[in-house]
């Protein structure tokens, strides 16, 4: 194992990407075999690297402290292994799902290129290579969204690129500040107190990392992409890779680069971002009627848990956040892949048109159910464990309000997945969907693998916790203190776990009630009133308040989520789409009018410029 081996996870996928792109269309089988073999090699080396754990590859590069510096240690090898695992599942799935789709070759190439950049970003131990790999992900992001091939795909791709680009650029600024504060660009040597300029650097870098992970308010492209981009892309980037990378960097920022203390202002800031993201995104998820859009909003909401966990700056919270990261990547990827499987056979993901598929597609239904239960945090699946840890962390931080926010999130997560699962796989068959078969094995296997992992990581949570998560924190606790969170894991009889289980029961009742109320139509279970005009709603509220306080609660919540959707989510979208565009155009218009083509005008500018420049120079020279 020489340090040079560290180049393999970067170069192999990059080379494979080029090869896959160049292989002729006719050699599809060869291409698929090559892709799977490549991913398998990466996975093998993922295990090898994980067992090695300590490697450093460092060659001088640009001078001025900018080295091409790769470092393998516990945390990066863990992420590397996880990335390789997802890569192979997605590759297998893609071979079936994208078969015959337009620009299929390109998609596969992008997948591997993404893997190359992501591996590089994880291994980088110097800010400049980090930024290089990080920014490289923008290209593949743009490319993969356009492959969606819908009329709005191009627009969504541009939107995604601009928002991510903004986050990345603010991260570059943050890195520049941190660099000048710390005096080195080598990541493993940086550890500064977050005060003054360093605090600004922290916030800027946090925007970069959280933006990559998809936290609010940098999330609006994800639901659009959910509809416009291929569903495989959603399972691959927003659900798995970007979460892993974003949270990895966030954890590095909060753990290594800056000394964030529990209860400090920056810790609370992170927790606020997390809590707000959890609650707002889940309320928006509740009213979605398209499975892919619903999943997209959950992908945002779950990020909130991770940020909340890391933001507590308490070992158990951080461990919970990181564990949630890996868990979320598994079940959300699984959910998107199941959605893809359903779409593959039925051609739609609209909840209204689907129903009763559990008999036709039992394996997909099983995978979906397990993943949905896991994301909702049902005992004994992995989501339960990591959420418990985050709840503990939030409570220990002393700000109970954040724990409450997390519980609220849990209620609505479960409610909306009851709705989704109920309408798609259970209940009556609908007329829109003809008789269908189960998806091909290449699509089902990845789903089942992910579902199996969800169960394994839940029931036998000692394995991931001791193997992956706890060593990350080993260097960050007081000397002599042992890190062991397995004790909390599946214990049911403590107040925290009981409250969580209570939340789940509440969610179930909520769903049941909505389901009955809306005439046994599962897809309407969560939104009996939400289409009515506001006046009607107010009227109804006034009338039923006396008889039915429960209904009123539901309605208030429904109204709230609609209002939030229209009042916060859309305005943010509006800011990105309209306000920026509009002011830009106005300003441009004025400037363009000034260029009226008349020579004397132009000459006058030059002379005025001369006078101003001369004045400024002589003033400054004195």
């Amino acid at each position: 194992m020489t340090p040079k081996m560290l180049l393999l996870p970067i170069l192999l996928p990059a080379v494979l990407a080029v090869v896959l792109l160049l292989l002729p269309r006719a050699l599809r089988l060869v291409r698929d075999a090559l892709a799977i073999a490549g991913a398998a090699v990466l996975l093998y080396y993922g295990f090898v690297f994980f067992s090695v754990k300590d490697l450093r590859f460092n060659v001088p590069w640009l001078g001025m402290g900018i080295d091409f510096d790769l470092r393998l240690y516990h945390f990066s090898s863990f992420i590397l292994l996880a990335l390789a695992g997802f890569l192979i599942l997605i590759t297998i799935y893609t071979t079936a799902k994208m078969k015959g789709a337009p620009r299929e070759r390109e998609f596969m190439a992008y997948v591997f290129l993404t893997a190359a950049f992501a591996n590089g970003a994880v291994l980088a131990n110097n800010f400049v290579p980090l930024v290089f790999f990080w920014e490289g992900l923008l290209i593949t992001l743009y490319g993969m969204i356009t492959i969606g091939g819908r009329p709005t795909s191009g627009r969504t791709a541009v939107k995604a690129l601009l928002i991510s680009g903004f986050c990345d650029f603010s991260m570059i600024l943050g890195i520049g500040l941190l660099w000048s504060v710390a005096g080195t660009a080598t990541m493993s040597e940086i550890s500064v107190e977050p005060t003054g300029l360093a605090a600004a650097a922290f916030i800027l870098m946090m925007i970069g990392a959280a933006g990559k992970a998809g936290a609010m308010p940098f999330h609006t492209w994800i639901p659009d992409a959910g509809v416009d981009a291929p569903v495989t892309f959603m399972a691959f980037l927003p659900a798995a890779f970007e979460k892993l990378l974003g949270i990895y960097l966030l954890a590095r920022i909060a753990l290594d680069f800056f000394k964030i203390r529990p209860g400090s202002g920056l810790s609370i800031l992170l927790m606020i971002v997390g809590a707000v993201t959890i609650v707002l995104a889940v309320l928006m998820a509740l009213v979605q009627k398209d499975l892919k859009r619903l999943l997209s909003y959950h992908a945002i909401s779950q990020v909130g848990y991770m940020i909340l966990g890391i933001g507590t700056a308490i070992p158990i919270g951080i461990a919970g956040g990181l564990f949630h990261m890996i868990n979320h990547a598994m079940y959300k990827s699984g959910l998107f892949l199941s959605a893809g499987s359903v779409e593959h056979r039925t051609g739609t993901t609209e909840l209204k048109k689907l129903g009763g598929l559990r008999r036709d597609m039992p394996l997909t239904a099983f995978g979906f159910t397990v993943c949905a239960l896991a994301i909702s945090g049902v005992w004994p699946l992995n989501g339960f464990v990591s959420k418990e840890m985050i709840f503990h962390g939030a409570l220990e931080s002393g700000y109970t309000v954040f724990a409450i926010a997390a519980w609220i999130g849990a209620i609505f997560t479960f409610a909306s997945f009851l709705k989704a699962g109920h309408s798609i796989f259970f209940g009556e068959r609908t007329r829109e969907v003809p008789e269908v078969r189960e998806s091909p094995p290449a699509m089902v296997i990845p789903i089942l693998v992910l579902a199996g992992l969800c169960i394994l990581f839940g029931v036998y949570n000692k394995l991931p916790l001791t193997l992956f998560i706890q060593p990350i924190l080993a260097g960050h606790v007081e000397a002599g203190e042992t890190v062991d969170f397995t004790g909390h894991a599946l214990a049911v009889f403590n107040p925290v776990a009981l409250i969580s289980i209570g939340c789940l029961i509440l969610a179930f009742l909520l769903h049941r009630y909505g389901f009955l109320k809306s005439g046994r139509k599962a897809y309407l279970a969560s939104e009996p009133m939400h289409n009515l005009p506001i006046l009607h709603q107010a009227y109804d509220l006034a009338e039923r308040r006396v008889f039915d306080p429960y209904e009123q609660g539901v309605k208030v919540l429904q109204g709230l989520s609609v209002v939030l959707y229209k009042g916060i989510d859309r305005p943010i979208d509006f800011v990105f789409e309209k306000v920026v565009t509009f002011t830009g155009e106005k300003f441009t218009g004025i400037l363009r009018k000034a260029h009226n083509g008349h020579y004397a005008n132009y000459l006058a500018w030059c002379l005025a410029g001369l006078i101003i420049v001369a004045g400024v120079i002589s003033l400054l020279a004195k």
Partner: protein
Amino acid sequence: MTNTWYLYVFFAAALVCAGLLGLLGKRNLIKLFIAIEVIGKGISLLLLGTGFAKANILTAQALVITYIVIEVSLVATALALIINIYRHTKSLDIRNLAKLKG
């Protein structure tokens, strides 16, 4: 010494100013180019005057000759452009040359 220099620089500045004002106000293409020529005279006067006042007249003279050669090339090019523009627009009005804008 400053007095001699002052004399030439004063008049050179006057010529440049007159030329710039002409460029700003005139509309006939040929008139505009005459204004450029006036600026050119001011500049060559400045060059030679500076050399004269600072006892570098021989170098200055060489520079002015080069400057004049450049001026000739420039005049030829500019007048060729003006004739071509006249063929296209049948007019010498600079206000007709405002098609490119925005």
